[in-house]
């Protein structure tokens, strides 16, 4: 392998990428705008949840409850009659239905402990979870306000001082931003390398390279370093300028260590890009293959939801994927400030997976050139 060839061919790849506005646009978008919007998307917050109320009491206490629900968390409540309630829930019109029983106020004041029924459409998972708590506390607050008296705590004086480490306010934007960087790194490295190879194949320039004193390894390594470098630089810029500076997300650990980890990860994913491109052969097939490969890779790596809630078998299988390790690594370094003493097993795993992928990709690439 001649390093000069690897260098020259890599520079050619960079020039080629520079002339492809679509891919450049994708790189810029993925590392700036996409991260920004991801950090500002607040999927868990309740937004205009649909609520209906059956007020069978029609008392000051019940109307106080009815008026407590308003936008932006809830839609203005629909006042309905008891028989409508089930039908509306069946049709999916309401997520919450509150049923205030007759004589609620009287029973409340008489200390008879009346029961308000809250029906939640649990097929709407996100709203059901967060909204249920909101409704509960709003109703309690209004009833307490109505009674206008406060009962002193009779519980034993044991306090639980609960602190969240690494993200004290549990700001979801921090997580969203960094997860998106991680996802973008994986996606772009595969797409760019695969596209670089397929472009060459579709233009018939691969054949041309082969008659020159250039070996398959040199061609493949040149694509790996050039496309890997683009993603590495883009992710460095994005971590420093977009995440740390623009979004003011504090980075706990060493950015340099994270970039070193990224470089190792890129080695594995760019090899994967070469491999997938040789399987696909043409751009449309590559696109379809990406649909089938990228989404599972991303969703099951633990980047968006915790790995431990996945079935055991999937957790084990996903250990073979480079981004599982990269996600663990990146979260440890960026969020928890872990050093190399903590994350070395992931480094080792990435290097091993990368080497295996490199050998597999090279073998396929050689066959692809025939």
């Amino acid at each position, binding site marked *: 392998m001649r390093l000069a060839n690897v260098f020259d061919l890599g520079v050619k790849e960079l020039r080629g990428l520079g002339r492809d506005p679509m891919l450049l646009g994708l790189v810029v978008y993925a590392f700036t705008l996409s991260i920004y919007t991801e950090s500002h998307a607040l999927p868990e917050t309740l*937004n205009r949840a649909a609520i209906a109320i059956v007020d069978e009491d029609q008392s000051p206490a019940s109307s106080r409850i009815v008026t407590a629900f308003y936008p932006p968390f809830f839609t203005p409540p629909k006042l309905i009659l008891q028989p409508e309630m089930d039908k509306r829930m069946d049709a999916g019109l309401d997520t919450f239905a509150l049923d205030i029983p007759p004589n609620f106020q009287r029973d409340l004041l008489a200390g008879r402990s009346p*029961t308000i029924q809250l029906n939640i459409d649990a097929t709407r998972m*996100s709203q059901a979870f967060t909204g249920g708590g909101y409704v509960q506390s709003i109703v309690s607050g209004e009833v307490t306000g109505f*009674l206008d008296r406060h009962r002193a705590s009779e519980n034993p004086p044991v306090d639980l*001082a609960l602190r969240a480490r690494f993200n004290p306010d549990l700001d979801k934007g921090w997580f969203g931003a960094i997860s998106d960087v991680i996802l973008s790194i994986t996606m772009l490295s595969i797409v760019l390398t695969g596209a670089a190879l397929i472009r060459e194949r579709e233009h018939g320039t691969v054949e041309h*390279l082969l008659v020159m004193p250039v070996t398959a390894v040199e061609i493949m390594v040149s694509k790996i370093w050039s496309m890997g470098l683009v993603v590495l630089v883009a992710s460095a810029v994005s971590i420093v300028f977009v995440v740390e500076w623009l979004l003011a997300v504090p980075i706990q650990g060493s950015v340099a260590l994270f970039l070193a980890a990224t470089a190792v990860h890129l080695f594995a994913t760019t090899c994967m890009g070469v491999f997938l491109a040789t399987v696909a052969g043409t*751009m449309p097939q590559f696109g379809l293959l990406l*649909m089938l490969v990228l989404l599972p890779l991303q969703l099951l790596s633990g980047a968006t939801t915790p790995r*431990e809630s996945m079935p055991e078998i999937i957790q084990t299988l996903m250990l073979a994927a480079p981004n599982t390790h990269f996600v663990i690594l990146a979260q440890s370094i960026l969020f928890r400030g872990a050093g190399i003493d903590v994350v070395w097993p992931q480094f080792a795993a990435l290097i091993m997976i990368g080497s295996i992928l490199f050998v597999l990709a090279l073998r396929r690439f050689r066959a692809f050139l025939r």
Partner: protein
Amino acid sequence: MSETPPVVRLRDVALVYGAARALDMVSVDLPAGVMVGLIGPDGVGKSSLLSLVAGARVVQTGVVETLGGDMSDAEHRRRTCPRISYMPQGLGKNLYPTLSVFENVDFFGRLFGHDRRERERRVAGLLARTELQAFAERPAAKLSGGMKQKLGLCCALIHDPDLLILDEPTTGVDPLSRRQFWELIDDIRRDRPGMSVIVATAYMEEAERLDFLVAMDAGRVLATGSPDELKARASATTLDAAFIALLPEAKRRGHEEVVIPPRAAGVDEMIAIEAQGLTMRFGDFTAVDQVSFRIPRGEIFGFLGSNGCGKSTTMKMLTGLLPASEGTARLFGREVDPKDMAVRRRVGYMSQAFSLYGELTVRQNLDLHARLFGLDPEAIPGRIAEMANRFGLDDVMDSWPDALPLGVRQRLSLAVAMIHAPEILILDEPTSGVDPIARDNFWSILAELSRKDGVTIFVSTHFMNEAELCDRISLMHAGKVLISDTPAEIVRSRNASNLEEAFVACLEDAIGEPPASPAPSPAPRDPADGAVPQPTVPSVRRSFSLRRMFAYSRRETIELRRDPIRAALAVVGSLILMFVIGYGVNMDVEDLTFAVLDRDDTTVSRDYVQQIAGSRYFIEKRPLQDYADLDRRMRDGTLSFALEIPPNFARDVARGRNVELGAWIDGAMPARAETVRGYVQGMHANWLAGKARLLYGSAATVGEFQLAIRYRYNPDVRSLVAMAPAVIPLMLIMIPAMLAALSVVREKELGSIINFYVTPVTRFEFLIGKQLPYVALAMLNFVLLTALAIFVFQVPFTGDFICYAVGALLYVSATTGMGLVISSFMGSQIAAIFGTAVLTLIPASQYSGMIDPVSSLQGAGRFIGEIYPTTHFITISRGAFSKGLGFDELWPSLVPLALAIPVLIGLAGALLRKQAR
């Protein structure tokens, strides 16, 4: 001839693509009942003209009349298209590569409304005539160039057209196949004497045998007339020369006839290239069989052969790219070793298609190649300047190659191949498509390289006049070299009048066919195939034909089955994705790891810990030693939650003193941390309440009122139960829509859409025919997804399955319809893939009640949500899965779905064009 009206009349026809002018005020009449030829190099407007005549392209300006009617009139096009047959340029362009020979012809038969018996008769007749019956089961992609063209002709002739339009039908085909092709045409014309044929060709030898020629250049007609008339007008002996003479003065300037001085005999008989018994086998297929030749230094050696005859494999073995199975190749007496990079430095190579980097400038291309060949970096700029000067590239050094004319690009390719001053130059069909003047210039350069610099040139070509310029030529066929000698000697030894005839004779010998077989082919003649042509098929007139529709469905199914990646996506793609989403986007938080730093270690503290460890959410890990341990284990992510119990906890609780427990949650994943916080706080409160009950009795916990929460439809609040019924609609829109869109866009990109333009298929036959297989596939997916949800994800199904299935059928008909609508504004397959994903997923996940019910949306989002099919199917899916509903309750959601289908298909039909623009 003069009495019969012309078959085609053009008046002031102009055609513009963007800034490029393809046709410039063309007015010409083409006579009927004869063979008309359009001649001229690539890019002069021949193909544009033919596509206008065939009605495949919209007429921009001027009048195009074919078979006595205006081609801009849709009614006339509909009436005449069954009488026209159009074979576009490019080997097998109108064929379907994965379909077999029989399936291809059969498909066209169906499009023209032939019934089974009729099809079988016609297909058998045509295949017999073209001698393709032995290959009836072979996929079109695996045919040789000549066979592909014969198959294309079969497809074009299936409906007995009155006008046959052939766009460069023989380009890239070996001389024998070419001859056979023309004999076939003659044969057919004998049966159907009234048939008019219009042919575009780049071969002047072919043009000689046509009745009427139209010479074209730069979008204009240079001259018309019979070959003899043209030659007489230009007072030239060959058509090639006549064509050059007819060109405008500005173009002819500087043109000289190529004269290659003879090689000085015996001066330099060093052998540059030598092959001895070269053989290459791939499995049991022998690509190259015992090829031997010796090429002395400085010779121009021509290599003739059709596509796939083993030319490129031989070249690869010579350059050491492929190790030979048997035999040896020597360059300058040294055996070629594939691992020996030094050999490649002595060889320059120029491939058939322009294959330099379009994304690099001319200078960068030269520079890259110079570096790759390991030239001394100091010497590179000088060398580049030298090459630029020699090959006339000085003015274009900083341009992008794509912007240059073909002839200049060819010179650039040659300059790149010569950058490292190789001693051997290998050129693979270097001049295909180049105009005669540029070609002659190119050969002048080659002559100079050979004679002055002593470069050995190994060139493959399919032009006979180029072959004649070579010192020696070899003819290769099916892996074997048939003959190898000087052009003159070959002609003499075969007693032929020219090189082409000599070659055809060689080929016929090799194949073992009777020499010169213009005799009618041995095909069995059907009585109906006799001299009186049958009138065109009656069923063509019908406005909507199920046969044509199913022809498309059938073909789509076969193609899908033979495309592994697309088929995998269609059959199991949604299953994989749902599986992944089901487990990957899980909102249940379980099996959280925690550890305790218990500084008290009493029954009370252990009771507190037990409270947490006993729940199904937490798994206790070994106790913490100290803060450093806590810190380390939280940093590496092995603990999600850590608890510290202070010393004297039990004593202080008993005495009612204020105690504080320390607890830390891993905040790296905020959503998980929030859940953990909720769990821990709940358990803490529970523990306190239990303690209080112990201390003060039951009176302590009676509240003022109670809030009874009922989690309806999903009492255990399981993520999967909530997710699965919402993900199924998502899967059934994204992938079916994408596949349906691809099915149309693929045809646009690969060019087979032309068959839709020029056959009697209507838009709706085309669209619905393509849609049906995907509806069926989507229903299969629906069954699989539902089974996955019920049996693997354990989601209870409580409603009416029939109602659910009917809803699904309506839904997938609508979603595939959406794919067809999307396809009308997508240009490439890759755009269709990502475009469809975005266009379907965003409304489906944001506005269709998957997360927020549509009733809570406002403005545009609300409007989209109300009309989007996914909204209604999510209601049906959730209703049928979790809410125990059936037709009685769900009909309000079924009706809008049913309405969406005709609207979407109607829209797709309105947007689909029946002609290219």
